[in-house]
């Protein structure tokens, strides 16, 4: 465990020693390489997913790539700023940031506008800012700060406190309604509590409760028909739909739409085969059979054009990113660093599994982006800030 620092040598003043401790020499370049590899691949696929539609409408084919590149640059700048300040100082601002983002989420109900059934962003002149993306990062920070202040064995009241910390933003997000992001927050809380020392019993009961909650939400009228259809559409997808004789309910209609959409997504992925159709040669991608292919379903564009080689390579990159973050968690000089890395790992892993799983037809359709791939400024910047936090922990493991 990375929580025992008793053996560390006292601060030294030798030049070599100072150089050894200088964070600038401990940047995790493997992590950076993997992240920027995925970002570059993402830009290629955003272009591929959008170029035909842009051509058809006589619009700039590079418009989406340009905007996404801008978000990447902004994200890098934000990440560098995050890295410049020691993560232990960030702990002091954790609460401010936490309540700040919570306020932003709450503010959406006042000024947010209704689009796609979700009240999700602030329009900031050409850039739509989604506080939910930032909220996930601040949740990681505030939970790391809180749990690191607790003893090794977490009591029930502390466990409940951690849950409460997670509950505030999750509830605000769920009310938008954005079930996907709420689930991510759940994963973050559970992952960090697991590593932070919560009792197995608490975690098991909590997991059970969450599953029950999901089932209850799905089976009662809490969700709109189209939402329920999106969440359940991946089950029994291949079953031939029964011949409808009477009037067909809104749920069934939505279900058919979702299943047809998933069918097309899976067809596109399978169409890629081993080596793919080639860049810009994906007939299903060019034909726009898969909706939201530059955002939530970008994985299918990559899988069609670049095949198992490309899509498998992409998954491998995520594995490398995951492994490096996990390694950071083990190497961190303190519990705070470990928990930040664990939170980042839980958030990223859940995002990738849920998004790719939804593309592959084994997870419900919840609109959460694929890290570093999906088009979208807020999420790209949020993930880069998250990587900045992890780098912060990694480069200061001796400082």
């Amino acid at each position: 465990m990375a929580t025992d620092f008793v053996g560390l040598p006292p601060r030294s003043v030798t030049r070599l020693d100072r150089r050894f401790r200088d964070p600038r020499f401990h940047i995790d370049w493997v992590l950076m390489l993997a992240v920027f590899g995925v970002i570059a691949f993402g830009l290629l696929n955003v272009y591929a997913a959008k170029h035909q539609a842009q051509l058809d409408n006589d619009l700039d084919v590079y418009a989406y790539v340009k905007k996404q590149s801008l978000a990447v640059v902004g994200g890098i700048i934000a990440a560098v700023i995050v890295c410049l300040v020691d993560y232990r100082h960030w702990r002091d601002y954790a609460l401010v940031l936490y309540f700040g983002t919570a306020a932003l989420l709450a503010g959406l109900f006042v000024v947010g506008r209704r689009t796609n059934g979700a009240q999700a962003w602030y329009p900031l002149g050409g850039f739509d800012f989604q506080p939910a993306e930032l909220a996930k990062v601040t949740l990681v920070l505030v939970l790391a700060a809180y749990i690191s202040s607790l003893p090794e064995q977490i009591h029930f009241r502390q466990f409940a406190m951690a849950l409460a910390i997670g509950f505030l933003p999750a509830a605000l997000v769920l009310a938008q309604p954005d079930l996907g992001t709420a689930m991510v927050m759940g994963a973050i809380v559970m992952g960090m509590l697991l590593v932070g020392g919560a009792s197995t019993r608490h975690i098991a009961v909590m997991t059970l409760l969450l599953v029950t909650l999901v089932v209850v939400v799905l089976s009662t009228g809490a969700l709109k028909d189209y939402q329920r259809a999106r969440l359940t559409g991946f089950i029994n997808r291949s079953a031939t739909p029964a011949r409808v004789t009477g009037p067909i309910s809104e749920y069934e209609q939505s279900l058919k739409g979702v299943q047809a959409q998933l069918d097309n997504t899976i067809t596109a992925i399978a169409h890629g085969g081993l080596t793919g159709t080639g860049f810009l040669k994906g007939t299903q991608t060019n034909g726009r059979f898969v909706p939201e292919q530059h955002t939530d379903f970008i994985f299918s564009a990559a899988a069609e054009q670049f095949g198992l080689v490309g899509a498998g390579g992409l998954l491998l990159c995520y594995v490398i990113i995951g492994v490096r973050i996990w390694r950071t968690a083990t190497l961190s000089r303190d519990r705070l660093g470990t928990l930040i890395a664990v939170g980042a790992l839980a958030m990223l892993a859940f995002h990738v599994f849920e998004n790719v799983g939804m593309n592959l037809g084994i997870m419900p359709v919840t609109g959460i982006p694929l890290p570093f791939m999906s088009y979208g400024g807020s999420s790209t910047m949020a993930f880069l800030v998250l990587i900045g936090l992890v780098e912060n922990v990694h480069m200061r493991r001796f400082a």
Partner: protein
Amino acid sequence: MRLGVMAVVVVSLFAVLFGRLWYLQVMASPQYARKAEQNIVRWVQLTAPRGRILDRNGVELAGNTPVTVVTIDRDKIKKQSVREDLFRRLAKPLGPLDTTVDALKKRYTDPQYQQLADLPLAEGVDEQLATFLMERRDDYPGIDVATVARRTYPYGPLAAHVLGYVGRISDDRASELDKADPPYQPSDIVGVNGIEKIYETQLRGIPGLVRVEVNARGVVISRTVVRDPVPGNDVVLTIDAKVQNLAEQLLYSSLQKRRALAPAPPKVADPTYNPNEHFEAPGGSAIITDSQTGDVLAMASYPTFDPREMSAGISTARSQQLFQDKSLHAPLLNRATQGEYAPGSTFKLVTATSVLSFGISTGGVLPDTGTFTIPGKCDVARDGKCAWSNAGKTPHGLINLTHALTVSSDVYFYQLGYFLQQNYVGKPEQQAIQREADYFGFGKPTAVQLPFENSGYVPSLEHNRQRYLDNPKLYSKASAVYSNGANINLAVGQGDMLATPLQLVNAYATFANGGKVMAPNVVDRIMGPKGTPDATKLVLDIQPREVEKLSLPAQVRDPILTGLRGVVDPNADGTAKDVFVGFPLNQFPIAGKTGTAQTAGGKSVDDTSLFVGFQTDSQPLKPQYTIGAVLEKSGFGAQAAAPLVRSLFDSLLTDACKPGPLQVLPPFPYAPNPSPPPPTCSLRDGTAQD
């Protein structure tokens, strides 16, 4: 420890993803590849120009003409409001073409128009309107003007029954043609009748194929012409368009002439005679064939129709009218091959041949007192009736077979029919007439290259039984017998005996050529598509088709031939002697037979007028014509049918009745119930003789 648990969870999640990815992209990829293809590829067929139909001299009887069509890009009218607004604004300029907003809306959803092709809004648009629309393309977004080929018949109704017509493929035809490769589309035009139907596969050509890639919204991404259309082959007929034209004119003029007349008063009192009742003469048929080869030079049928009406897109109501309106007398029926008539006295050729072929002794001469009475005790159940008379009960005295043919003595043939039936019970001779009729091709299709040919009917015990068993609703059980009277009637081509005009002409041609039963040909050959390197290629050369060879030795042939020559000889006492006055019979010897067939009503005004004539000189290498005419409700054979046949012989052999030039008709308007113009020569009058 806890970190290790987390690592295991994350790794196993990624393993699941990778496994699923592997399954989809490697194991299940081929099955999804097909779906991916289906998602984006649509095939659109380009109709090939239909092959032409030419007469024996290369005159184009059926071709294609470019027609201007206004089309609309379907992508531009996807939105209902835009569509309806456009249709409303378009209905006005397109108004003269009967294009209403409702008609346009109906077209939009009509499955017969291909979904991926521009939607045709109006056909046959004139140049002025096309220019008007093209100048206002901004007002009518997506509108375009295209040129498509439409089936056209330059001479309108000329030879309409032989050519047939085309129409949009019906469900029945589609299932009939479902093995066609490439398959037919719901919008395809196919031959519905005549040569157009029989040679559909030759005329169709090979449709072009366009591979269309579409996206999820059905918007076309790319079009690639995979195969250019290949025009259909040209069908060359044996028909001579000029002779056909004259035959149609003469046929119509003959009928018209008869309509002005009432039957002559009968020599003996007839209660059904009404001097004010004119011949109706509603229709008929005239056929010219080459006796040696079976080639059909002309095949006229009246009333007729204009196949351009069908090409232009006929309405359901009009189509039903053509089929069902009794006052039109079935204009679509090809009376030459589908009309079934009692052949009357023209059938005596068969009776005479049968008797002579079977070597049945008639004792040389038989008495003709004007009426034949069943000898001994008459049994109406057995004999049908007890007394049969000649037309007008004219007695001919003691006559032999030759003379009986010349003067058309019914009583002579009644006696033959009675003897055969009475004296040869259970022997082959009892069926002599039926057998001979079968040899001559009666009671079965002639196998001419025309659809829906009828078989006619030769009555016999066996046939009558079968007829009853096949259709017990239509025929009574009493009809399933065969009485002496039936055979007496059969001997003179009456009773249940039915023949098509083509069967009748073909039987005489068989006698004329020495016994070869030829299947008539209306098609001479099929040539490669026009405008291609194959244009001069002989795709199919149709040879004369000998179906059967009858033995007609001199002792059979000569007495009959002499009798039939007498019929037309102005110096003899034949039934048509007045008709052939002035005809160079020495140069072109002709024989023939009149027929006046009674119909169900028994009134003389309803009698079918028949005549078949044939050339009898045996010079080789020169065509030998057999010409027949059958005119409904027109009276005596010598008065209506014989003069028509005489004029046709004139047109082919002498200068007396040369066919006039053909007139190409303007594409519009077509006559709804067309009738030919008057012929270039007048018809002779014949005497009122059977």
